[in-house]
């Protein structure tokens, strides 16, 4: 109760503001339509109209919820009109990209921590790499990968990887460096090898950092998968839904795809949170 009540309150306030904003943003269209049909709208009519337009500037919450319901529960999950199907397409690219990004980030972090040259030369470029707008080069990446015979899941996953390796590098470099001087000296007095030092000291010590980075990486990875879907020909996936919605001005469809994406992200991040709690608990750090 302590946790639910505040959240519910905030959500209620947001929904109220949302309905009000829907009136404000959609009123013009309602009035224009009425004017074209030589009708005048009463206040109540106006409000009801703004909450039930087919292509509103801002769809009302219940419109989005209805759309979500129709495209998830009422559709067969294998249907191309099912959001679950599209979410799965996106999620599979997200997970693959997340896996690759985590692996790459992890490898880079280990390199940076253990190899001096890498420590000095790589980090500034890793930061610079993230200032490149990925959306700008995503189509080119996809084309080039296609030219190399890679298509389908992998190009999307590569873009996910590009976005998700960064938080992992930053977090893991910090985490792998978090053992204190004394802890490292202890290992030295026992004449531990580098491998032993890594497995028994640096790695466990970096776990909290790892999980924090993984959560960010997962969210970034989802964004990457969606970005990667935009130029692949808008075939399937939440990105394709967003895009198709935007071509045809289907705002309700955009919003429901958007919420689906956020829900997928929240679920994936939540899952990491559960793994985190279980792991840290097993490590006695819960």
């Amino acid at each position, binding site marked *: 109760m302590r946790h639910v009540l505040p959240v519910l309150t905030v959500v209620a306030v947001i929904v109220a503001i949302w309905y009000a904003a829907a009136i404000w943003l959609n009123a013009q269209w309602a009035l224009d339509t009425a004017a074209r049909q030589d009708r005048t709208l009463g206040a109540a009519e106006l409000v009801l109209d703004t909450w039930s337009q087919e292509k509103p500037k801002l769809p009302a919450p219940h419109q989005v919820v209805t759309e979500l319901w129709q495209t998830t529960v009422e559709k067969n999950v294998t249907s191309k009109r099912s959001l679950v199907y599209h979410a799965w397409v996106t999620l599979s690219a997200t997970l693959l990209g997340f896996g690759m990004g985590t692996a790459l980030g992890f490898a880079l972090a280990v390199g940076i921590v253990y190899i001096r040259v890498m420590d000095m030369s790589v980090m500034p470029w890793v930061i610079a790499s993230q200032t490149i707008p990925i959306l700008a080069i995503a189509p080119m990446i996809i084309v080039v990968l296609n030219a190399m015979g890679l298509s389908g899941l992998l190009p999307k996953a590569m873009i996910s990887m590009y976005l998700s390796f960064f938080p992992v590098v930053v977090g893991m470099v910090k985490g792998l460096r978090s053992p204190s001087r004394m802890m490292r*000296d*202890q290992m030295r*007095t*026992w004449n531990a090898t580098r491998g032993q030092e890594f497995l*028994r000291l640096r790695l466990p010590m970096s776990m909290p950092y790892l999980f924090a980075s993984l959560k960010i990486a997962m969210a970034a990875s989802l964004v990457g998968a969606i970005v990667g879907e935009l130029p692949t020909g808008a075939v399937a996936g939440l990105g394709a839904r967003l895009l198709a919605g935007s071509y045809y001005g289907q705002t309700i469809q955009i919003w429901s795809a958007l919420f689906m994406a956020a829900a997928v992200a929240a679920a994936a991040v939540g899952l990491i949170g559960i793994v985190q709690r279980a792991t840290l608990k097993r490590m*006695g750090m819960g």
Partner: protein
Amino acid sequence: MTEGAIIDARDVSLTFQTNDGPVHALRDVNLSVEKGDFVSFIGPSGCGKTTFLRVMADLEQPTAGTVLVNGVSPEEARKARAYGYVFQAAGLYPWRTIGGNIRLPLEIMGYDRPVQARRVKEVLELVDLAGFEKKYPWQLSGGMQQRASIARALAFDADILLMDEPFGALDEIVRDHLNEQLLALWARTQKTICFVTHSIPEAVYLSTKIVVMSPRPGRITDVIESPLPRERPLDIRDTPEFLEIAHRVREGLRAGHAYD
């Protein structure tokens, strides 16, 4: 090399290069420790006690002079796992149980599993922590953690024990108790112990040899061989001999100090 010396330092100097210029942590330190000695290092804060211990442990390289441990260089001694080191703070790994922490060096050194289990049990009993094997460090009081950290250094067969203010964080009663136990252990195992402390009574009570140091640049101002017998009940601390050595240590310390 002095005959039979297990640790032999000749003209050891160590200078740290820092942003504010060089810090002379040790200058021309000469010391030799025989096998089975209990050596205490005492001196004002920042005089180089920890640094000297670290040099012996090959955690720091002297900028001049030579050190021999067991007749070889500190590096070789370290690789031969010749010593156990107890740090100033307990430094237990929070993700391992007390047992797991003590087992850690044994795992690294490749002891067999049954041997590991036996040793862990033994040293836990030695430091009065039997029954706490499955607890995590944060479930123990500071004193108990410190004892676990001592147990960890005792778990494997090192001839030399280097201890850096292991009892600094404890109250007097617990400290007395651990002092007694440490003496008993030392008598039983015949280990050579180098022990850093700030407490004059502690130094006098424990040691066969007390090394008094003065600050920056850290040098040895006095080495006092204790005439006390090896067998020492706690109330030896009220004897005149004890008070006299304590007095000498205090004078030595005061000489090196800025006050008075």
